[in-house]
Structure formats: C-alpha cells, structure tokens
C-alpha cells in the first residue's frame, strides 16, 4: 500500500549571508520500507532520531523531503496541490499531544463537521449524522458535540482527534506517539480503540513510539531508527526474540519490565544520541556500540537481509 524509497529530509539550519550557505540537519537520511494493507508498522527510536519527521514526510507535509513515497502506486512527493487534497482523504495523522492538536476555539461538533465541509461530503443532515456516528465509533456521545476541547480529559481528546482523523474515511493513519502522553490506564483504552478501529475499518497504521512494549503490542512489523536511518526492521515477534542490531538489543534491554524479581540490567548502553547536525561517520551507532571496530567508524554498513522479513544494517552478524 505504501512504499517509501530512500526518503531523505534535510533541514537547513541557520542562515548564511548567501542563500546556499548554512548547515544541513539530516533528520531523515535515506530510509526505505513498505506497509501492506491492514498492517501496522511500528517505528521506534530515541528522541530526535527522525520518527516524526518520517511521519510528516510521508504525508507530504514537508517541502524538504526527497526520495519517493508511493501511496497506492501514486507518487506523493511530486504531486500537485489538488491531487494531494484527494490523497489527504486517504491518509491521516494523529499527534502525540492531545492538548495541542485541537483548535481550542472550535466546538467539537464544528471541528468534526468542518472536515466534512472541506471535503464536500454530504449535505447538512448527512454531515450531522456522520458526526454522531464518528463520536460513537470512538466511544463518546453526541452530548459532547457542543463542548469545547478544554472541557475534555486527555484521553477523551485523543478520542476526538481520532474521530476527526476518521471523518474523511482514511485508509492509512500515522499515529505519532499517540499514546505516549497518556496515563497507563488511559493508554490501554486508546490502544484498544485503535485496534478495534483497525479491525472494523481495515485501517493501516504507521505507529510511532518510543515505548517498545507498547509498539510491540501494537505492530505487526517494527522498524528501529537511529539518527535518521533504519538500523533494523523485522516482524515484531522476530525482532524481540531475535534482535540482530546492537542498538535494537540495547533498546530492548532498557525496557524495564514490571517485575521486581527480574534482576534488570540497567547498564545497557553508554552515552547519548549524537547531534544529527554532525552525525558520526561510518556506522552512526559506532560511538556507543560495544562491538564497534575501526571498520564501523569508516564504512557505513549496508542493509542486509536476515530472512524474508528481517533486515539489519550492521557489519556484524549477531545471533
């Protein structure tokens, strides 16, 4: 359904006297993956590694994007405005912050209806019915329609945001850390909602997160990002049972399990993610990798196929 090929997003930082001057921040630096209908791809990585940027680029929100994004066979990045508008109906984005993603000045009902108006869907009554239907779908009721966003809790807002995204009947939704800001109990509610909707509406998700246990729970396939590159990608079970990249391993072992009896090893990885403005040479992870050798510092590893659905970019062959 979605195919991403060698996607690059380089932001220009700072302005020089001359137009071409300035540094480039390589937020996303050549990543490729694909998602099938009804599938969920999880995207994990440390803060600042380019997850959100990837999400945005796929939706055609960043003019800095280079490479190819094919959605149902259509080239997104080179598309004209009008074409983009129709594609927008099929692709949606749900943000992390349930407090910031609703216009505080619009009543919920109006916010939902507006989307329908913009896409010229139905007449007044039909729209009204649709809005109510949407609210029901996400477990809210129509009394809520005449309220303003601030009258809702975080969990409820996230439901509204989901309802708004669903209004245009999308086929594909990017969830950018959609549950990270929520409490565990609310988080599980939203995860369940998203899963239910996926089943009911046959949705496809790109699920961005940094909590591996949540991503794992949610996704069919997981891609691990580090400094703008995908270092490993596999089916989620496979990735957890059989991580090949040292970074994936480090991430996995940093996840703390809610079990006091396990003696959890806290000393998994040293140092911090380097600045994407000045990424390390060679394998970008070599500065923190305990296996790193001279080669890692010089040569960028190619993505290898471990098996049909498992890819890794590392010079070592870890088992």
């Amino acid at each position: 359904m979605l195919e991403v090929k060698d996607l690059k997003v380089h932001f220009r930082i700072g302005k020089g006297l001359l137009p071409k001057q300035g540094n480039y921040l390589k937020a996303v630096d050549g990543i490729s993956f694909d998602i099938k209908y009804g599938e969920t791809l999880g995207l994990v990585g440390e803060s600042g590694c380019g997850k959100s940027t990837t999400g945005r680029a796929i939706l055609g929100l960043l003019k800095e994007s280079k490479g190819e994004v094919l959605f149902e066979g259509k080239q997104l990045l080179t598309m004209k405005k009008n074409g983009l508008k129709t594609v927008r109906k099929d692709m949606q984005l749900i943000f992390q912050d349930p407090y910031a993603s609703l216009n505080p000045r619009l009543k919920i009902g109006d916010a939902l209806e507006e989307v329908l108006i913009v896409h010229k869907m139905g007449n007044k009554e039909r729209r009204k019915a649709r809005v109510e239907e949407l609210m029901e779908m996400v477990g809210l009721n129509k009394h809520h329609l005449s309220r303003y966003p601030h009258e809702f809790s975080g969990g409820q807002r996230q439901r509204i945001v989901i309802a708004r995204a669903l209004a245009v009947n999308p086929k594909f939704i990017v969830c950018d850390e959609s549950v990270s800001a929520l409490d565990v109990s609310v988080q599980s509610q939203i995860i369940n909602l998203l899963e239910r909707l996926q089943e009911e509406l046959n949705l496809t998700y790109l699920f961005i997160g940094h909590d591996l246990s949540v991503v794992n729970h949610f996704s069919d396939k997981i891609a691990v990002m580090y400094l703008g590159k995908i270092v490993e990608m596999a089916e989620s079970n496979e990735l957890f049972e059989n991580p090949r990249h040292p970074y994936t391993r480090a991430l996995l072992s940093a996840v703390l399990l809610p079990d006091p009896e396990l003696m959890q090893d806290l000393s998994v990885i040293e140092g911090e993610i380097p600045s994407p403005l000045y990424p390390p040479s060679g394998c970008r992870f070599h500065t923190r990798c305990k296996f790193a050798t001279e080669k890692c510092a010089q040569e960028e590893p190619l993505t290898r196929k471990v098996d049909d659905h498992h890819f890794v970019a590392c010079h070592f062959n870890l088992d």
Partner: protein
Amino acid sequence: MEEPILEITNLTTSFYRKKELLPAVDNVSFSISKGQTVCVVGESGSGKSVTALSIMRLIPEHAGKITGGEIVFKGKDLLKLSDKDMRAVRGNRVSMVFQEPMTTLNPVFTIGNQLMETIMMHQNVTKKEAMEKALEMLKKVNIPSPAQRLQQYPHQLSGGMRQRVVIAMALVCKPELLVADEPTTALDVTTQAQILKLMNDLKSQTETAVLFITHNMGVVAATADKVIVMYCGRIVECSDAKTIFKDPKHPYTIGLLKSIPKIAEPQKKLFSIKGSVPAPGQIKKGCRFQSRCELVTEQCRLEEPPLIEKNGSLVRCWQI
C-alpha cells in the same frame, strides 16, 4: 526494620479554587526508613507531586497550603520549623529532583555556579573547596569531561546530562532523604536506564532514603523497596514491591498492572480500566474509585473504605 527517618501522618494539602480550599492530597500517611526507596505511583493528578512538594514545603503560597498533618523528619516536624530552619534542611538534609531536566536548571548561570551555590549555602567551605566538591560530584554522576562542564550553561547539555547535574546537585550535600519527582519520565528509555542505575549506585553508597515518584511500573520494579499507590489524593494501597506485583489487592492496582502491554505476550487484547479519574471537586462520597471499579457495591457508594492491613499490604477497599 529501622526507625523511619521520615514519617508522614495525615498530610492534607489543599488548593484554592474559587475561594474554596480543595484537598489535592487527603490524609496521607506513610513512612520511609533509612536507605529505603519508596515509590509512589498513580494516575496523573492523583497528588504525587503535591505530596513531594509538601515535604519540601514548596507549595506555592498563593495557590494552596498544607492544611493538616505532620511531616516528621528525624523527630522534628518540618511543618513547625521556622523558614530559616527549613532552609537549612532543604537541599542539605532533604533534597529534591524534579521531572523536567530542561527547566529545573537556571538557564543564565553555569552548571558550576549552580552546584557551588548549593555547597556554599550549606557547608562552610571556600569557593575553591566548593569547586572541587562540585567537580567530584560531577565525576560521580558520570559526566564526561566534568571540569569543562562546570563552565557550561544548562542549554549546552543534553537532557540526560542535565538530569545528571540535577541529581548531582541534589546529592552533593549527602542528604538523608532524596525526593525524586518523576526524574526519568522525560527521558529516553536508554537514558532512563542510565539514570536509574546511577541513582541505585549512589544510593547504595550513601544510604540515602529515596521517595521516588513515577507512573511507570517498570521503573517501580527496578527501584522500589516499598510501593505506595495513590488515587485521587488518597493512598489506596501500600506494601513492599514484591507483594504489589505478585499480589495486588486493590482493584485499581490490579487494573493498572493489567493495563501495561507485556512484551512477552503481545497479541493479547489489553485490559483497560474503564472511565477516567474524577475531576477535583467532583469527588462523591464513598470510595473514590467507585465509578471505575468492577467490584463496586452499595457499601462502596456510601462510605469510603479505611486503609486496612491485609496480608502485609495496606489496602483501601471494602471488597477484600
């Protein structure tokens, strides 16, 4: 068990809301002993931070106040101390680490300046000695090239670094109690692990007691000796760490634990507690968890359960 160094009894802290005082922390009692780590968990808004701030007596004056109870630290009620005496306790014998590493450090002073300030405030040392101590402390929290860092400003450090600095600042006077309010929530998992390790290491060296606030059960499992579960300003369950995970008793605790996605069994549908936390001011009589509880009965609606002991845990529920 040792004599507790901090004993809180019936602490109530309230905030003004339209001239009314509404309690955010309601009759909370617990104690911490030397070297012990007590974790406080609970949903957002349940009063975890307010409890911590109450201990430090840092509730903003215009917003609210401590309306009752005692906070006895080493035999002395902190609430009765004069401002001056309280200052001598803060940062020295009891210190605190906050959640947001980005904002807890003053952006216009160097790391060194802020560290040394604490040292010189509480210890009778010269500037040079303070500097040495600061340097030593930065080394202890594993900050690379510490001498250089002393001259740097907070914004020049990454989030994880800053949090280390904050911890260094909290521990530099070798406090007997460290209050840590979600010190790792804003950090990446990898950094979180580093910070937790660091705290565990330092604690074992100094025998500092820690009050650790979090809502991440994984963090609790990795650090806690004792766990307090709060809900709506109340303690609903309190016991040692193992018991909480193995044998949670309060329906809220049970729900909380079940809501966490497990890596081991990813495909299963997640459990979730229905409904949401009642807003402050909307708390009805009876059990505060009644609206979300699956075991709710008439009794729960009428009367709030007391915190009673059950199999080594303190639980606030009629159903056990």
